[in-house]
């Protein structure tokens, strides 16, 4: 056996033991590997920068670094999903630790400083732990991709596995396994020193090599060592040409995360001088928007909760991003070559793309399938921004080509002519308030809150009931408020998200002018679409207000004792989270607090709730469009039926319409109803006995 020189208290090993004449070839290989890595990334850089409008995301450095540390280094966003989180975490942290382990070895070798004794024992143990972690992680990944085959690692039931996926997994697995074999062979060659038991995986591996001659052990060790070293070099060289490039691109994308409000869509700023609106060609995206697609690892979390995808529509956010990536990889080299040929001064002759971005690459249906529910963006671990891309493409279809669904054209005309999507005469906007004695801002501008009612609350019969209920709550609680009455206009959310930015800005500017004219400071809305638009989009056009959703206000009024729900409402109830309230604005708790304050209610949660909530299907202008195939609202209603809900609470008039329709469609009108949280609280106040209980009234009559 090989002579053991390391004694108790001085445990250790020779770094690069048994590797004869390795240094020069290893250096050469390493040089080649890193040269290929550098070259590959350089070529990639050229592709990243060749196409797209400029966009820099380098402001707020400290926030960006924190985001990167939290989600890159600490894997916060990746670990939100258990199985893949653990799987990726094992590989990721192993990679991180083992790389420093290798560097530590190299340091010891070149510096001649050897850490012996306890540091060595700890080091060797840690290396073994993380080596094993990587193996477990890769096995989990192989199991998931090739045996469990979840739908999200494919499209419509067909896996989208690539050869590259297999190569990467096998590569990591073999590197890890050979590492342990090398360790085992060495431990066997030194005749199983007791202290090496801390290298528990290597030691266990060594036990398989009992009775093998020293020469064979040393020869095998050397061969295996080279194999291992070359694979590791191969890994480095392969990185820029494989999915491994996400090691570079994903953290960069995390660093460039949108720090503006969640759901932010860059407004069109200059209608007069722009030649083109929206995105109809790849190069009309910004470089960041295109870079997104290179940060995508096809993990499929976006697809996994997409209401359009899950009800059989063509859209898959993952596929869209990948389709853009494929198109970019076709186009970008051509554009780069053309720019090179033209030189810095010349005008590059860029060949026209053979495929139309919207019609051929992404597909017109997917562009219109999206409900803007933001599930994809909420759950993308590398912060890819799907929804703004979709809105940009819709803008092109609407503003440039005027090629979009006829029913949406009608909606826009209605919004143009009567400032509401239904096209009901705008003079009827405040009719709901006639008998309630609600003041208008014109009558009394010195109120604390403007109650911005919105179109659903003003024109839709069901929506008007919500408005009335909420106005009664405000009066009951003595809140000082007024409405704009017929001066109010449509918030424009559906126009904006449906790609009609021009119409949206006209509507928004009208409202802003009116509100600023009254010096409005605080606004309450019952519709989360208006809420989100007024709160996040209007400031970009000069409207800066404190905006509250009625769920926040009601929760506050209950907490401060101004509203006292005392009358029991006996029912099993579930809350359907509105996307524009929940994911967009993280208002999950307030509506639940409101419901929990109502005696008698038993709140049950649907499987998909809070940040995983399943859209009702009405967001992103889908409210006004025909839906083909399985209806999203019916699918959502089924989830409420599944938990045995007698009432479905909503906090959004669009959701109300969709869930009510779902209940009707499923023939559950006898057993179920949908109610806005304001209506439930009003019932519980017990001041509404006449209207709310016609049955009781009949008996006494």
């Amino acid at each position, binding site marked *: 056996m090989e002579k053991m020189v390391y004694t108790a208290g001085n445990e250790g090993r020779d770094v690069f033991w048994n590797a004869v004449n390795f240094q020069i070839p290893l250096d050469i290989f390493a040089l080649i590997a890193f040269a290929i890595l550098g070259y590959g990334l350089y070529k990639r850089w050229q592709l990243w920068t060749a196409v797209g409008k400029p966009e820099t995301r380098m402001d707020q450095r400290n926030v960006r670094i924190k985001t990167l540390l939290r989600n890159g280094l600490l894997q916060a966003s990746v670990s939100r999903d258990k199985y893949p989180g653990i799987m990726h975490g094992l590989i990721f942290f192993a990679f991180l630790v083992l790389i420093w382990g290798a560097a530590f070895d190299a340091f010891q070798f070149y510096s001649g400083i050897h850490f012996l004794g306890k540091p060595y024992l700890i080091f060797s143990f840690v290396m073994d732990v993380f080596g094993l972690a990587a193996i477990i992680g890769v096995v989990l990944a192989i199991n998931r991709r090739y045996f469990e085959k979840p739908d999200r690692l494919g499209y419509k039931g067909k896996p989208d596995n690539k050869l590259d996926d297999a190569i990467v997994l096998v590569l990591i697995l073999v590197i890890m396994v050979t590492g342990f074999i090398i360790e085992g062979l060495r431990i066997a060659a030194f005749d199983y020193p007791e202290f090496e038991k801390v290298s528990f995986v290597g030691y266990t591996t060594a036990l398989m090599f009992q009775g093998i001659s020293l020469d064979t052990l040393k020869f095998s060790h050397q061969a295996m060592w080279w194999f291992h070293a070359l694979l590791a070099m191969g890994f480095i060289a392969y990185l820029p040409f494989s999915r491994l490039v996400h090691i570079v691109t994903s953290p960069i994308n995390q660093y460039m995360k949108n720090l503006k409000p969640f759901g932010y869509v860059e407004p069109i700023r200059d*209608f*007069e001088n722009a*030649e083109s*609106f929206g995105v109809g060609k790849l190069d009309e995206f910004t470089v960041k928007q295109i870079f997104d697609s290179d940060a995508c690892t096809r993990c499929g979390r976006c697809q996994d909760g997409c209401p359009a995808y899950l009800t059989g529509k063509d859209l898959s956010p993952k596929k869209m991003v990948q389709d853009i990536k494929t198109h970019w990889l076709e186009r970008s080299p051509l554009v780069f070559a053309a720019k090179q040929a033209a030189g810095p001064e010349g005008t590059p002759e860029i060949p026209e793309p053979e495929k139309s971005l919207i019609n051929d690459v992404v597909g017109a249906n997917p562009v219109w399938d999206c409900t803007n529910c933001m599930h994809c963006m909420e759950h993308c671990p590398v912060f890819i921004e799907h929804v703004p891309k979709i809105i940009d493409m819709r803008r092109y279809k*609407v*503003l*440039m*080509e*005027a090629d*979009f669904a*006829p029913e949406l*054209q009608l909606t*826009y*005309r209605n919004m143009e*002519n*009567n400032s509401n999507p239904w*096209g*009901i*005469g*705008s*003079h009827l906007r405040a009719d709901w308030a006639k008998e309630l004695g609600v003041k208008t801002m014109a009558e009394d501008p010195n109120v604390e809150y403007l109650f911005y009612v919105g179109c659903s609350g003003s024109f839709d019969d069901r929506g008007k009931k919500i408005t009335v209920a909420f106005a009664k709550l405000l009066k009951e609680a003595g809140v000082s408020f007024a409405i704009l009455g017929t001066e109010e206009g449509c918030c424009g959310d559906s126009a904006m998200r449906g790609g009609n930015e*021009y119409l949206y800005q006209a509507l928004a500017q009208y409202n802003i002018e009116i509100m600023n004219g009254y010096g409005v400071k605080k606004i309450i809305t019952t519709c989360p679409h208006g809420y989100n638009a007024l709160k996040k989009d209007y400031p970009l056009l000069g409207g800066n207000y404190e905006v509250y959703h009625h769920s926040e206000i009601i929760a506050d009024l209950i907490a401060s004792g101004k509203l006292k729900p005392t009358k029991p409402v006996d029912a099993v109830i579930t809350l359907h989270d509105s996307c524009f309230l929940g994911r967009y604005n993280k208002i999950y708790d307030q509506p639940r607090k409101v419901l929990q304050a109502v005696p008698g209610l038993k709140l049950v949660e649907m499987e998909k709730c809070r940040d995983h909530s399943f859209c009702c299907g009405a967001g992103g202008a889908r409210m006004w469009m025909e839906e083909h195939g399985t209806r999203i609202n019916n699918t959502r209603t089924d989830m409420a039926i599944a938990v045995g809900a007698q009432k479905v609470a909503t906090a959004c008039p669009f959701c109300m319409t969709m869930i009510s329709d779902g209940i009707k469609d499923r023939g559950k009108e006898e057993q179920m109803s949908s109610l806005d949280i304001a209506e439930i609280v009003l019932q519980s106040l017990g001041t509404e006995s006449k209207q709310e209980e016609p049955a009781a009234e*009949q008996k006494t*009559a």
Partner: protein
Amino acid sequence: MNIIACVKQVPDTEALIKAKPDGSGIVEEGIKWVMNPYDEFGVEEALKMKEKFGGDVTIITVGPPRVMETIRTALAMGAEKGIHIDDPSLYGADAYATATALAAAIKGIPYDIIFCGQRAIDDDSGQVGAVLAELLGIPQVTIVTKLEVADKAVKVVRPIEGAQLVIQSPMPCVVTAQKGLNEPRYASLPGIMKAKKKPVEVKNAAALGITAESKAKVVKTVPPPARPPGKIIEGDDPALKAATVCKLLREEAKVI
């Protein structure tokens, strides 16, 4: 091909219409004005023809300064130029005076086909297209839901009770558009931007060499009588309630 589309600006169908207290017309304040929907079918068909055969689409309208907005809407859809006949003597003109003004403006320019809406949704008179054709001495095909052009002639479909007529007419001619002819396009944003710079000639009666005289005059505008409120019959006994309904229908409403 030189195509002309005549348009009229009308109150939006959902607008609140109030008669002036003196009955001299409607209160225009607060009204949202739009292009007459039937004229929109005409404009759309004109644009489709242009796209197929080439040429220009000219929009002509009669009315006060506010109608310029409607011309711009048609220009945004894709028409090339506009003529705005603005003369106080023509405000509130009848079909004959309006058609006289249109004919005078059209006589001065080349044309192969003229589109009008089959009627305007405000006064529902439905005569301008017909009178215009008479004044120009050209054929007219009215209430058209389908149109084909071949060999300097149009072949159109005109639905009638229980059947449809296929009518052929030489060009130039006047075609009045009915719902079903097409789906008017939504103007693109570049279209809207370009429309602001497209030429619109404004002419008055003198420039056209006409004296507008309406043959028919609106004597009085009165609102329709307000609907009496509905009655809800209350009670516990369905039979008694039904009897009450019968009694009321017989005695009050006098329908049975």
